[in-house]
Protein backbone atom coordinates (compact mmCIF):
# COMPACT_ATOMS: atom_id res chain seq x y z
CA UNK A 1 0.00 0.00 0.00
CA UNK A 2 1.28 3.39 -0.96
CA UNK A 3 1.74 5.99 1.69
CA UNK A 4 0.77 9.59 0.91
CA UNK A 5 2.33 12.36 2.90
CA UNK A 6 0.90 15.86 3.12
CA UNK A 7 2.59 18.64 5.01
CA UNK A 8 0.90 21.70 6.42
CA UNK A 9 1.02 24.08 9.31
CA UNK A 10 -0.59 22.89 12.48
CA UNK A 11 -2.86 25.94 12.83
CA UNK A 12 -4.06 25.48 9.27
CA UNK A 13 -4.83 21.85 9.98
CA UNK A 14 -6.71 22.74 13.14
CA UNK A 15 -8.63 25.45 11.32
CA UNK A 16 -9.48 23.02 8.55
CA UNK A 17 -10.75 20.53 11.05
CA UNK A 18 -12.79 23.13 12.86
CA UNK A 19 -14.33 24.40 9.66
CA UNK A 20 -15.54 20.97 8.72
CA UNK A 21 -16.87 19.79 12.04
CA UNK A 22 -18.99 22.57 13.38
CA UNK A 23 -21.55 21.18 15.77
CA UNK A 24 -24.44 23.54 15.98
CA UNK A 25 -26.80 24.32 18.80
CA UNK A 26 -29.83 26.26 17.61
CA UNK A 27 -31.37 28.60 20.18
CA UNK A 28 -34.83 28.60 18.66
CA UNK A 29 -37.25 31.19 19.92
CA UNK A 30 -39.68 32.42 17.30
CA UNK A 31 -40.86 32.48 13.72
CA UNK A 32 -37.39 31.97 12.33
CA UNK A 33 -37.22 28.66 14.15
CA UNK A 34 -39.90 27.27 11.89
CA UNK A 35 -37.94 28.36 8.87
CA UNK A 36 -34.66 27.24 10.35
CA UNK A 37 -35.93 23.67 10.60
CA UNK A 38 -36.27 23.74 6.83
CA UNK A 39 -32.51 24.11 6.48
CA UNK A 40 -32.26 20.42 7.32
CA UNK A 41 -33.85 19.75 3.97
CA UNK A 42 -31.14 21.71 2.21
CA UNK A 43 -28.46 19.22 3.10
CA UNK A 44 -26.31 21.22 5.46
CA UNK A 45 -24.49 18.02 6.40
CA UNK A 46 -22.54 18.16 3.17
CA UNK A 47 -20.70 21.14 4.65
CA UNK A 48 -19.84 19.21 7.75
CA UNK A 49 -22.75 20.42 9.83
CA UNK A 50 -24.45 17.54 11.48
CA UNK A 51 -27.97 17.59 12.89
CA UNK A 52 -28.40 20.02 15.75
CA UNK A 53 -26.97 18.96 19.06
CA UNK A 54 -29.27 18.81 22.02
CA UNK A 55 -26.85 20.37 24.45
CA UNK A 56 -24.75 23.52 24.25
CA UNK A 57 -21.88 21.73 25.96
CA UNK A 58 -21.38 19.50 22.94
CA UNK A 59 -21.53 22.20 20.33
CA UNK A 60 -19.31 24.98 19.13
CA UNK A 61 -21.67 26.96 16.92
CA UNK A 62 -24.58 28.76 18.52
CA UNK A 63 -27.30 29.77 16.09
CA UNK A 64 -29.57 32.41 17.57
CA UNK A 65 -32.81 31.91 15.72
CA UNK A 66 -35.62 34.35 16.22
CA UNK A 67 -36.56 37.20 18.48
CA UNK A 68 -34.65 37.45 21.72
CA UNK A 69 -36.62 39.27 24.33
CA UNK A 70 -35.17 41.03 27.32
CA UNK A 71 -36.54 38.22 29.41
CA UNK A 72 -34.77 35.55 27.36
CA UNK A 73 -31.45 37.36 27.28
CA UNK A 74 -30.04 35.80 30.48
CA UNK A 75 -30.93 32.33 29.22
CA UNK A 76 -29.19 33.00 25.93
CA UNK A 77 -26.14 34.27 27.75
CA UNK A 78 -26.12 31.17 29.92
CA UNK A 79 -26.29 28.87 26.92
CA UNK A 80 -23.38 30.75 25.40
CA UNK A 81 -21.34 30.50 28.57
CA UNK A 82 -21.94 26.76 28.74
CA UNK A 83 -20.38 26.17 25.35
CA UNK A 84 -16.75 25.16 25.24
CA UNK A 85 -14.11 27.26 23.50
CA UNK A 86 -13.62 27.95 20.66
CA UNK A 87 -17.16 28.95 19.82
CA UNK A 88 -18.94 30.94 17.17
CA UNK A 89 -22.34 32.58 16.92
CA UNK A 90 -24.65 33.14 13.97
CA UNK A 91 -27.56 35.54 14.42
CA UNK A 92 -30.32 34.19 12.20
CA UNK A 93 -33.05 36.62 11.24
CA UNK A 94 -33.67 40.33 11.54
CA UNK A 95 -34.78 40.07 15.16
CA UNK A 96 -31.61 38.30 16.27
CA UNK A 97 -29.54 40.83 14.32
CA UNK A 98 -31.19 44.05 15.45
CA UNK A 99 -34.59 43.46 17.01
CA UNK A 100 -36.16 43.62 13.57
CA UNK A 101 -39.76 44.72 13.49
CA UNK A 102 -39.94 44.92 17.24
CA UNK A 103 -38.33 48.11 18.46
CA UNK A 104 -40.03 48.21 21.81
CA UNK A 105 -39.73 47.69 25.53
CA UNK A 106 -39.82 43.91 25.37
CA UNK A 107 -37.30 43.00 22.71
CA UNK A 108 -33.53 42.99 22.82
CA UNK A 109 -32.20 45.16 19.99
CA UNK A 110 -30.04 42.35 18.64
CA UNK A 111 -28.46 39.28 20.20
CA UNK A 112 -25.10 41.06 20.12
CA UNK A 113 -26.25 43.07 23.10
CA UNK A 114 -25.55 40.07 25.29
CA UNK A 115 -23.25 37.74 23.34
CA UNK A 116 -20.66 38.32 20.62
CA UNK A 117 -21.96 37.52 17.14
CA UNK A 118 -19.79 36.43 14.23
CA UNK A 119 -22.19 36.28 11.31
CA UNK A 120 -25.46 38.12 10.86
CA UNK A 121 -28.16 36.69 8.59
CA UNK A 122 -30.79 39.27 7.73
CA UNK A 123 -34.31 38.51 6.61
CA UNK A 124 -37.73 38.19 8.19
CA UNK A 125 -37.35 35.28 8.14
CA UNK A 126 -34.24 34.46 6.08
CA UNK A 127 -34.49 31.70 3.56
CA UNK A 128 -32.70 28.41 4.26
CA UNK A 129 -30.20 29.12 1.50
CA UNK A 130 -29.12 32.20 3.40
CA UNK A 131 -28.19 30.03 6.33
CA UNK A 132 -25.94 27.96 4.10
CA UNK A 133 -24.37 31.17 2.84
CA UNK A 134 -23.81 32.20 6.44
CA UNK A 135 -22.14 28.89 7.23
CA UNK A 136 -19.77 29.35 4.32
CA UNK A 137 -19.08 32.86 5.52
CA UNK A 138 -18.31 31.56 8.98
CA UNK A 139 -15.90 28.98 7.60
CA UNK A 140 -14.09 31.73 5.76
CA UNK A 141 -13.81 33.66 8.98
CA UNK A 142 -12.43 30.67 10.84
CA UNK A 143 -9.85 30.16 8.13
CA UNK A 144 -8.88 33.83 8.15
CA UNK A 145 -8.55 33.78 11.90
CA UNK A 146 -6.18 30.82 11.71
CA UNK A 147 -4.04 32.59 9.14
CA UNK A 148 -3.90 35.69 11.22
CA UNK A 149 -5.94 37.67 8.73
CA UNK A 150 -8.65 39.96 9.97
CA UNK A 151 -12.03 38.26 9.70
CA UNK A 152 -13.04 40.72 7.06
CA UNK A 153 -16.37 40.30 5.41
CA UNK A 154 -15.92 40.31 1.66
CA UNK A 155 -18.36 42.51 -0.13
CA UNK A 156 -21.11 40.74 -1.97
CA UNK A 157 -20.28 42.38 -5.27
CA UNK A 158 -16.71 41.18 -5.08
CA UNK A 159 -17.80 37.63 -4.51
CA UNK A 160 -20.91 36.87 -6.52
CA UNK A 161 -21.07 33.31 -5.25
CA UNK A 162 -22.38 34.52 -1.91
CA UNK A 163 -25.42 36.03 -3.56
CA UNK A 164 -28.44 33.83 -3.30
CA UNK A 165 -31.16 34.12 -5.82
CA UNK A 166 -34.25 34.90 -3.83
CA UNK A 167 -36.96 34.08 -6.26
CA UNK A 168 -36.87 32.90 -9.84
CA UNK A 169 -38.60 35.63 -11.76
CA UNK A 170 -41.46 34.51 -13.90
CA UNK A 171 -41.13 36.95 -16.73
CA UNK A 172 -37.47 36.44 -17.49
CA UNK A 173 -36.10 39.45 -19.20
CA UNK A 174 -33.22 38.46 -21.44
CA UNK A 175 -30.13 39.89 -19.86
CA UNK A 176 -26.97 40.53 -21.76
CA UNK A 177 -25.40 37.16 -21.17
CA UNK A 178 -28.66 35.41 -21.91
CA UNK A 179 -29.12 37.28 -25.15
CA UNK A 180 -25.66 36.30 -26.31
CA UNK A 181 -25.98 32.67 -25.37
CA UNK A 182 -29.61 32.35 -26.31
CA UNK A 183 -29.26 33.74 -29.79
CA UNK A 184 -28.17 30.35 -31.14
Amino acid at each position, binding site marked *: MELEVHTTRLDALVSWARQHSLDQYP*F*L*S*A*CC*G*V*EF*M*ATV*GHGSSRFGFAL*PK*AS*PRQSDLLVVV*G*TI*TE*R*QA*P*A*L*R*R*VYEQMGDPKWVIAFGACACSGG*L*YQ*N*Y*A*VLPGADQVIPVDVYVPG*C*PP*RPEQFLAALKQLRLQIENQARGRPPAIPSLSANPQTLVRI*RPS*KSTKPNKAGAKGGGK
Partner: protein
Amino acid sequence: MTKARGANVQRNQRLVMDLPEAAGDSLGLVLGPSHPVLRGSARIVLEVEGEAIRAVDVQVGLLHRGFEKEAESSPYDQTLLLAERLNYVSPLLSAAGYALAVERLLGIEENIPMRARRLRVVVCELSRIADHLTCVGATALSLGASNAFFLLMDARARLWRLLESLAGPRLGSPYIRLGGVNSDLPDDWIAGFRTFSPGLRQTVWRVDQLLGENPMFRERTRGVAILAKQDVQGWGITGPVARASGVLCDVRKDNPYFGYEDFEFDVPLGDVGDNWDRYCLRMEELRQSLRIAEQAIGRLATGPVIVDDPRIVPPAVELRQTQVWAQASLFLLATAGPIIHPGEVYSAVESANGELGFYLASDGSARPKKCRVRSPSFANAAALGPLLTGHFVADVIPTYCLFNIVGGECDR
Protein backbone atom coordinates in the same frame (compact mmCIF):
# COMPACT_ATOMS: atom_id res chain seq x y z
CA MET B 1 -14.70 41.29 34.59
CA THR B 2 -15.05 39.16 37.65
CA LYS B 3 -17.34 41.68 39.17
CA ALA B 4 -19.57 41.79 36.12
CA ARG B 5 -19.65 38.03 36.02
CA GLY B 6 -20.65 37.89 39.62
CA ALA B 7 -23.56 40.16 38.92
CA ASN B 8 -24.64 37.99 36.03
CA VAL B 9 -24.50 34.86 38.09
CA GLN B 10 -26.71 36.44 40.65
CA ARG B 11 -29.17 37.47 38.00
CA ASN B 12 -29.15 34.05 36.45
CA GLN B 13 -29.82 32.45 39.77
CA ARG B 14 -32.98 34.43 39.97
CA LEU B 15 -33.92 33.29 36.51
CA VAL B 16 -33.55 29.63 37.22
CA MET B 17 -35.57 29.21 40.32
CA ASP B 18 -38.98 30.22 41.37
CA LEU B 19 -39.39 26.62 42.30
CA PRO B 20 -42.13 25.42 44.54
CA GLU B 21 -40.90 24.55 47.98
CA ALA B 22 -39.25 21.19 47.61
CA ALA B 23 -40.29 18.85 50.38
CA GLY B 24 -39.00 15.40 51.25
CA ASP B 25 -37.75 13.52 48.25
CA SER B 26 -39.22 15.80 45.64
CA LEU B 27 -37.04 17.49 43.09
CA GLY B 28 -37.25 20.72 41.15
CA LEU B 29 -37.00 20.35 37.40
CA VAL B 30 -36.99 23.10 34.82
CA LEU B 31 -37.85 22.57 31.18
CA GLY B 32 -36.90 25.36 28.82
CA PRO B 33 -36.63 28.02 27.71
CA SER B 34 -33.84 26.58 25.57
CA HIS B 35 -35.54 23.38 24.62
CA PRO B 36 -36.02 21.76 21.21
CA VAL B 37 -39.78 21.69 21.52
CA LEU B 38 -40.54 24.60 23.82
CA ARG B 39 -38.61 26.67 21.27
CA GLY B 40 -37.39 29.22 23.73
CA SER B 41 -40.81 30.63 24.34
CA ALA B 42 -41.96 28.85 27.45
CA ARG B 43 -40.52 27.58 30.62
CA ILE B 44 -42.11 24.79 32.60
CA VAL B 45 -41.07 24.47 36.20
CA LEU B 46 -41.94 21.11 37.67
CA GLU B 47 -41.79 19.65 41.09
CA VAL B 48 -41.33 15.94 40.64
CA GLU B 49 -41.30 12.97 42.90
CA GLY B 50 -39.56 10.22 41.04
CA GLU B 51 -41.20 10.34 37.63
CA ALA B 52 -44.47 11.80 38.85
CA ILE B 53 -45.25 15.47 38.74
CA ARG B 54 -46.45 17.04 41.94
CA ALA B 55 -46.73 20.63 40.90
CA VAL B 56 -46.41 22.55 37.66
CA ASP B 57 -45.82 26.18 36.90
CA VAL B 58 -46.09 26.97 33.22
CA GLN B 59 -44.30 30.25 32.63
CA VAL B 60 -45.13 31.97 29.38
CA GLY B 61 -44.14 35.40 28.14
CA LEU B 62 -40.58 34.69 27.08
CA LEU B 63 -41.60 35.66 23.58
CA HIS B 64 -43.62 38.71 24.56
CA ARG B 65 -42.77 41.07 21.73
CA GLY B 66 -45.14 43.92 22.50
CA PHE B 67 -47.55 43.28 19.62
CA GLU B 68 -50.32 45.35 21.14
CA LYS B 69 -48.02 48.27 21.87
CA GLU B 70 -46.58 48.10 18.36
CA ALA B 71 -50.06 47.90 16.84
CA GLU B 72 -51.16 50.99 18.74
CA SER B 73 -48.33 52.98 17.19
CA SER B 74 -48.50 51.56 13.66
CA PRO B 75 -50.87 52.32 10.81
CA TYR B 76 -53.64 49.76 10.42
CA ASP B 77 -52.19 48.26 7.26
CA GLN B 78 -48.69 47.83 8.63
CA THR B 79 -49.98 45.93 11.63
CA LEU B 80 -50.91 43.20 9.19
CA LEU B 81 -47.24 42.38 8.99
CA LEU B 82 -47.02 41.98 12.74
CA ALA B 83 -50.23 39.97 12.81
CA GLU B 84 -48.64 37.46 10.44
CA ARG B 85 -45.97 36.93 13.03
CA LEU B 86 -48.41 36.16 15.83
CA ASN B 87 -48.92 32.54 14.99
CA TYR B 88 -45.95 31.93 12.77
CA VAL B 89 -46.88 28.36 12.02
CA SER B 90 -50.01 29.53 10.23
CA PRO B 91 -49.27 33.20 9.51
CA LEU B 92 -52.02 33.74 6.97
CA LEU B 93 -54.70 32.76 9.46
CA SER B 94 -53.65 35.43 11.94
CA ALA B 95 -53.39 37.99 9.16
CA ALA B 96 -56.84 37.06 7.86
CA GLY B 97 -58.26 37.46 11.35
CA TYR B 98 -56.76 40.90 11.70
CA ALA B 99 -57.84 41.98 8.22
CA LEU B 100 -61.37 40.82 8.93
CA ALA B 101 -61.46 42.84 12.14
CA VAL B 102 -60.42 46.01 10.32
CA GLU B 103 -62.95 45.34 7.56
CA ARG B 104 -65.69 44.87 10.13
CA LEU B 105 -64.61 48.07 11.85
CA LEU B 106 -65.02 49.86 8.53
CA GLY B 107 -68.29 48.02 7.92
CA ILE B 108 -67.19 46.73 4.54
CA GLU B 109 -67.18 43.00 5.23
CA GLU B 110 -70.01 42.52 2.74
CA ASN B 111 -68.14 44.41 0.01
CA ILE B 112 -65.17 42.08 -0.13
CA PRO B 113 -65.29 40.49 -3.58
CA MET B 114 -66.34 36.87 -3.65
CA ARG B 115 -63.15 35.77 -5.34
CA ALA B 116 -61.12 37.32 -2.56
CA ARG B 117 -63.21 35.52 0.04
CA ARG B 118 -62.77 32.20 -1.69
CA LEU B 119 -59.04 32.73 -2.00
CA ARG B 120 -58.86 33.64 1.65
CA VAL B 121 -60.66 30.43 2.53
CA VAL B 122 -58.15 28.48 0.46
CA VAL B 123 -55.09 30.00 2.06
CA CYS B 124 -56.61 29.92 5.54
CA GLU B 125 -57.33 26.22 5.27
CA LEU B 126 -53.88 25.56 3.84
CA SER B 127 -52.41 27.45 6.77
CA ARG B 128 -54.50 25.43 9.16
CA ILE B 129 -53.13 22.32 7.51
CA ALA B 130 -49.58 23.62 7.96
CA ASP B 131 -50.30 24.27 11.61
CA HIS B 132 -51.81 20.85 12.24
CA LEU B 133 -48.98 19.15 10.36
CA THR B 134 -46.47 20.93 12.58
CA CYS B 135 -48.43 20.12 15.71
CA VAL B 136 -48.73 16.42 14.97
CA GLY B 137 -45.17 16.31 13.69
CA ALA B 138 -43.75 17.88 16.82
CA THR B 139 -45.79 15.47 18.95
CA ALA B 140 -44.51 12.53 16.99
CA LEU B 141 -40.95 13.75 17.38
CA SER B 142 -41.38 14.28 21.09
CA LEU B 143 -42.53 10.67 21.37
CA GLY B 144 -39.60 9.42 19.33
CA ALA B 145 -41.45 8.85 16.08
CA SER B 146 -39.12 10.82 13.88
CA ASN B 147 -40.16 9.03 10.70
CA ALA B 148 -43.66 10.48 10.99
CA PHE B 149 -42.14 13.86 11.76
CA PHE B 150 -40.13 13.87 8.56
CA LEU B 151 -43.11 12.75 6.52
CA LEU B 152 -45.20 15.57 7.90
CA MET B 153 -42.46 18.15 7.51
CA ASP B 154 -42.03 17.07 3.92
CA ALA B 155 -45.75 17.59 3.32
CA ARG B 156 -45.49 21.00 4.96
CA ALA B 157 -42.53 21.93 2.80
CA ARG B 158 -44.57 21.13 -0.29
CA LEU B 159 -47.42 23.18 1.08
CA TRP B 160 -45.14 26.11 1.73
CA ARG B 161 -43.94 25.95 -1.83
CA LEU B 162 -47.56 26.51 -2.83
CA LEU B 163 -47.97 29.47 -0.47
CA GLU B 164 -44.61 30.87 -1.46
CA SER B 165 -45.64 31.16 -5.09
CA LEU B 166 -48.60 33.31 -4.03
CA ALA B 167 -46.75 36.29 -2.64
CA GLY B 168 -43.03 35.64 -2.38
CA PRO B 169 -41.70 34.90 1.08
CA ARG B 170 -41.88 31.33 2.27
CA LEU B 171 -43.03 31.95 5.78
CA GLY B 172 -45.25 34.88 6.62
CA SER B 173 -46.32 35.20 3.05
CA PRO B 174 -47.91 38.67 2.81
CA TYR B 175 -50.84 37.46 0.77
CA ILE B 176 -53.69 38.84 2.87
CA ARG B 177 -54.40 42.52 2.41
CA LEU B 178 -56.94 44.78 4.03
CA GLY B 179 -59.95 44.44 1.74
CA GLY B 180 -58.94 41.27 -0.05
CA VAL B 181 -55.80 39.51 -1.11
CA ASN B 182 -52.57 40.68 -2.66
CA SER B 183 -52.93 39.30 -6.15
CA ASP B 184 -54.72 36.68 -8.14
CA LEU B 185 -53.46 33.13 -8.30
CA PRO B 186 -50.45 32.45 -10.50
CA ASP B 187 -51.33 30.59 -13.71
CA ASP B 188 -50.26 27.13 -12.70
CA TRP B 189 -51.24 27.40 -9.08
CA ILE B 190 -54.45 25.39 -9.25
CA ALA B 191 -52.66 22.61 -11.10
CA GLY B 192 -50.03 22.65 -8.37
CA PHE B 193 -52.73 22.41 -5.75
CA ARG B 194 -54.38 19.51 -7.52
CA THR B 195 -51.15 17.53 -7.45
CA PHE B 196 -50.51 18.53 -3.85
CA SER B 197 -53.83 17.54 -2.34
CA PRO B 198 -53.82 13.76 -3.14
CA GLY B 199 -50.23 13.65 -1.93
CA LEU B 200 -51.27 15.22 1.35
CA ARG B 201 -54.15 12.77 1.73
CA GLN B 202 -51.66 9.98 1.18
CA THR B 203 -49.29 11.43 3.77
CA VAL B 204 -52.05 11.82 6.31
CA TRP B 205 -53.08 8.23 5.73
CA ARG B 206 -49.52 6.99 6.08
CA VAL B 207 -48.88 8.97 9.21
CA ASP B 208 -52.11 7.66 10.66
CA GLN B 209 -50.84 4.19 9.93
CA LEU B 210 -47.48 4.95 11.48
CA LEU B 211 -48.78 6.65 14.59
CA GLY B 212 -52.40 5.68 15.02
CA GLU B 213 -51.77 2.01 14.47
CA ASN B 214 -48.73 2.05 16.65
CA PRO B 215 -49.55 0.52 20.04
CA MET B 216 -46.74 2.44 21.70
CA PHE B 217 -48.06 5.75 20.45
CA ARG B 218 -51.52 4.82 21.65
CA GLU B 219 -50.23 3.83 25.04
CA ARG B 220 -48.35 7.07 25.38
CA THR B 221 -51.33 9.23 24.50
CA ARG B 222 -54.44 7.45 25.72
CA GLY B 223 -55.74 8.64 29.05
CA VAL B 224 -53.04 11.27 29.31
CA ALA B 225 -54.00 14.81 30.32
CA ILE B 226 -57.74 14.34 30.23
CA LEU B 227 -59.55 17.65 29.96
CA ALA B 228 -63.11 17.12 31.16
CA LYS B 229 -65.87 18.52 28.98
CA GLN B 230 -67.34 20.68 31.75
CA ASP B 231 -64.00 22.39 32.42
CA VAL B 232 -63.34 23.46 28.86
CA GLN B 233 -65.41 26.62 28.67
CA GLY B 234 -64.41 28.01 32.02
CA TRP B 235 -60.77 27.81 31.04
CA GLY B 236 -61.61 29.76 27.92
CA ILE B 237 -60.41 26.94 25.73
CA THR B 238 -61.63 26.89 22.14
CA GLY B 239 -60.69 25.20 18.92
CA PRO B 240 -59.27 21.69 18.50
CA VAL B 241 -58.50 21.25 22.19
CA ALA B 242 -62.07 22.09 23.16
CA ARG B 243 -63.50 19.93 20.41
CA ALA B 244 -61.34 17.00 21.47
CA SER B 245 -63.09 17.20 24.82
CA GLY B 246 -66.46 17.06 23.08
CA VAL B 247 -67.39 20.75 23.16
CA LEU B 248 -68.89 21.84 19.88
CA CYS B 249 -67.43 25.21 19.04
CA ASP B 250 -66.13 26.43 15.74
CA VAL B 251 -66.26 30.06 14.67
CA ARG B 252 -66.51 28.92 11.06
CA LYS B 253 -69.89 27.39 11.87
CA ASP B 254 -71.03 29.71 14.66
CA ASN B 255 -70.27 33.09 13.10
CA PRO B 256 -69.35 32.31 9.52
CA TYR B 257 -66.99 34.69 7.73
CA PHE B 258 -65.38 34.65 4.26
CA GLY B 259 -68.44 32.65 3.13
CA TYR B 260 -67.64 29.50 5.12
CA GLU B 261 -71.36 28.80 5.21
CA ASP B 262 -71.17 27.85 1.53
CA PHE B 263 -68.97 24.84 2.15
CA GLU B 264 -69.70 21.39 3.42
CA PHE B 265 -67.46 20.23 6.17
CA ASP B 266 -67.73 18.36 9.41
CA VAL B 267 -66.57 19.51 12.78
CA PRO B 268 -65.03 16.44 14.39
CA LEU B 269 -65.51 15.94 18.11
CA GLY B 270 -63.67 13.83 20.64
CA ASP B 271 -65.30 12.17 23.63
CA VAL B 272 -62.66 11.65 26.31
CA GLY B 273 -60.49 14.71 25.92
CA ASP B 274 -57.12 13.02 26.29
CA ASN B 275 -54.02 13.37 24.14
CA TRP B 276 -55.18 10.55 21.88
CA ASP B 277 -58.40 12.40 21.12
CA ARG B 278 -56.49 15.56 20.43
CA TYR B 279 -54.23 13.70 18.02
CA CYS B 280 -57.16 12.02 16.23
CA LEU B 281 -59.01 15.30 16.01
CA ARG B 282 -56.11 17.11 14.38
CA MET B 283 -55.72 14.30 11.86
CA GLU B 284 -59.40 14.47 11.01
CA GLU B 285 -59.28 18.25 10.76
CA LEU B 286 -56.46 17.92 8.26
CA ARG B 287 -58.80 15.98 6.02
CA GLN B 288 -61.68 18.41 6.59
CA SER B 289 -59.51 21.42 5.86
CA LEU B 290 -58.36 19.83 2.65
CA ARG B 291 -61.97 19.19 1.81
CA ILE B 292 -62.87 22.84 2.32
CA ALA B 293 -59.88 24.03 0.32
CA GLU B 294 -60.80 21.76 -2.57
CA GLN B 295 -64.38 22.99 -2.53
CA ALA B 296 -63.22 26.59 -2.45
CA ILE B 297 -60.86 26.02 -5.38
CA GLY B 298 -63.72 24.47 -7.30
CA ARG B 299 -66.01 27.41 -6.58
CA LEU B 300 -63.70 30.34 -7.18
CA ALA B 301 -65.79 33.22 -8.42
CA THR B 302 -64.57 35.53 -11.10
CA GLY B 303 -63.89 39.17 -10.52
CA PRO B 304 -61.48 41.33 -8.57
CA VAL B 305 -59.50 40.03 -5.62
CA ILE B 306 -59.53 43.22 -3.58
CA VAL B 307 -62.25 45.64 -2.63
CA ASP B 308 -62.57 48.96 -4.42
CA ASP B 309 -62.39 51.28 -1.44
CA PRO B 310 -59.87 54.12 -1.50
CA ARG B 311 -59.88 54.24 2.29
CA ILE B 312 -57.80 51.08 2.52
CA VAL B 313 -56.78 50.14 -1.01
CA PRO B 314 -54.79 52.47 -3.25
CA PRO B 315 -56.66 53.33 -6.46
CA ALA B 316 -55.53 51.82 -9.74
CA VAL B 317 -52.36 53.10 -11.38
CA GLU B 318 -54.16 54.79 -14.30
CA LEU B 319 -56.30 56.74 -11.88
CA ARG B 320 -53.34 57.69 -9.76
CA GLN B 321 -51.69 59.30 -12.74
CA THR B 322 -54.67 61.25 -14.00
CA GLN B 323 -56.93 62.00 -11.06
CA VAL B 324 -56.00 64.22 -8.15
CA TRP B 325 -58.28 62.38 -5.73
CA ALA B 326 -56.56 59.11 -6.51
CA GLN B 327 -53.16 60.54 -5.89
CA ALA B 328 -54.37 62.22 -2.72
CA SER B 329 -55.75 58.90 -1.45
CA LEU B 330 -52.57 57.09 -2.35
CA PHE B 331 -50.40 59.67 -0.63
CA LEU B 332 -52.40 59.62 2.58
CA LEU B 333 -52.59 55.82 2.56
CA ALA B 334 -48.88 55.49 2.03
CA THR B 335 -47.81 58.07 4.59
CA ALA B 336 -50.43 58.28 7.30
CA GLY B 337 -52.11 54.93 6.67
CA PRO B 338 -55.81 54.21 6.53
CA ILE B 339 -57.88 56.57 8.64
CA ILE B 340 -60.81 54.79 10.22
CA HIS B 341 -63.84 56.51 11.70
CA PRO B 342 -64.37 56.16 15.45
CA GLY B 343 -65.78 52.83 16.46
CA GLU B 344 -65.13 49.50 18.06
CA VAL B 345 -65.28 45.93 16.92
CA TYR B 346 -64.74 42.49 18.30
CA SER B 347 -64.10 40.06 15.52
CA ALA B 348 -63.08 36.44 15.79
CA VAL B 349 -61.91 33.81 13.37
CA GLU B 350 -61.25 30.13 13.85
CA SER B 351 -57.48 29.89 13.90
CA ALA B 352 -55.65 26.61 14.07
CA ASN B 353 -55.77 26.76 17.85
CA GLY B 354 -59.23 28.16 18.42
CA GLU B 355 -60.98 31.49 18.60
CA LEU B 356 -58.53 34.18 17.54
CA GLY B 357 -60.26 37.41 18.43
CA PHE B 358 -59.29 41.00 17.72
CA TYR B 359 -60.80 43.85 19.67
CA LEU B 360 -60.10 47.09 17.82
CA ALA B 361 -61.03 50.55 19.00
CA SER B 362 -60.54 53.53 16.72
CA ASP B 363 -60.70 57.17 17.71
CA GLY B 364 -60.85 58.44 14.15
CA SER B 365 -57.11 58.74 13.68
CA ALA B 366 -54.69 56.67 11.65
CA ARG B 367 -53.65 54.57 14.64
CA PRO B 368 -55.86 52.23 16.62
CA LYS B 369 -56.60 53.36 20.14
CA LYS B 370 -56.51 49.76 21.20
CA CYS B 371 -55.65 46.59 19.39
CA ARG B 372 -56.25 43.62 21.59
CA VAL B 373 -55.55 40.05 20.56
CA ARG B 374 -57.58 37.34 22.19
CA SER B 375 -55.09 34.57 21.74
CA PRO B 376 -56.28 30.98 21.92
CA SER B 377 -52.82 29.67 22.84
CA PHE B 378 -52.73 31.82 25.95
CA ALA B 379 -55.99 30.38 27.25
CA ASN B 380 -54.83 26.87 26.36
CA ALA B 381 -51.54 27.34 28.15
CA ALA B 382 -53.36 28.42 31.30
CA ALA B 383 -55.08 25.07 31.55
CA LEU B 384 -51.91 23.10 30.98
CA GLY B 385 -50.54 23.39 34.48
CA PRO B 386 -53.40 21.83 36.45
CA LEU B 387 -53.83 19.22 33.73
CA LEU B 388 -50.29 17.88 33.98
CA THR B 389 -50.22 17.48 37.71
CA GLY B 390 -50.01 13.81 38.57
CA HIS B 391 -48.62 12.74 35.21
CA PHE B 392 -45.14 11.62 34.28
CA VAL B 393 -42.41 13.99 33.24
CA ALA B 394 -42.33 12.30 29.84
CA ASP B 395 -45.93 13.36 29.21
CA VAL B 396 -45.23 17.07 29.58
CA ILE B 397 -43.75 17.68 26.16
CA PRO B 398 -46.27 15.66 24.09
CA THR B 399 -49.12 17.39 25.89
CA TYR B 400 -47.52 20.77 25.34
CA CYS B 401 -47.17 19.87 21.66
CA LEU B 402 -50.77 18.74 21.28
CA PHE B 403 -52.06 21.89 22.96
CA ASN B 404 -50.03 23.58 20.24
CA ILE B 405 -48.93 26.59 22.23
CA VAL B 406 -47.28 28.88 19.73
CA GLY B 407 -45.06 31.38 21.47
CA GLY B 408 -45.75 34.35 19.24
CA GLU B 409 -49.47 34.02 19.61
CA CYS B 410 -49.49 33.09 23.28
CA ASP B 411 -47.16 35.85 24.42
CA ARG B 412 -47.89 38.37 21.64
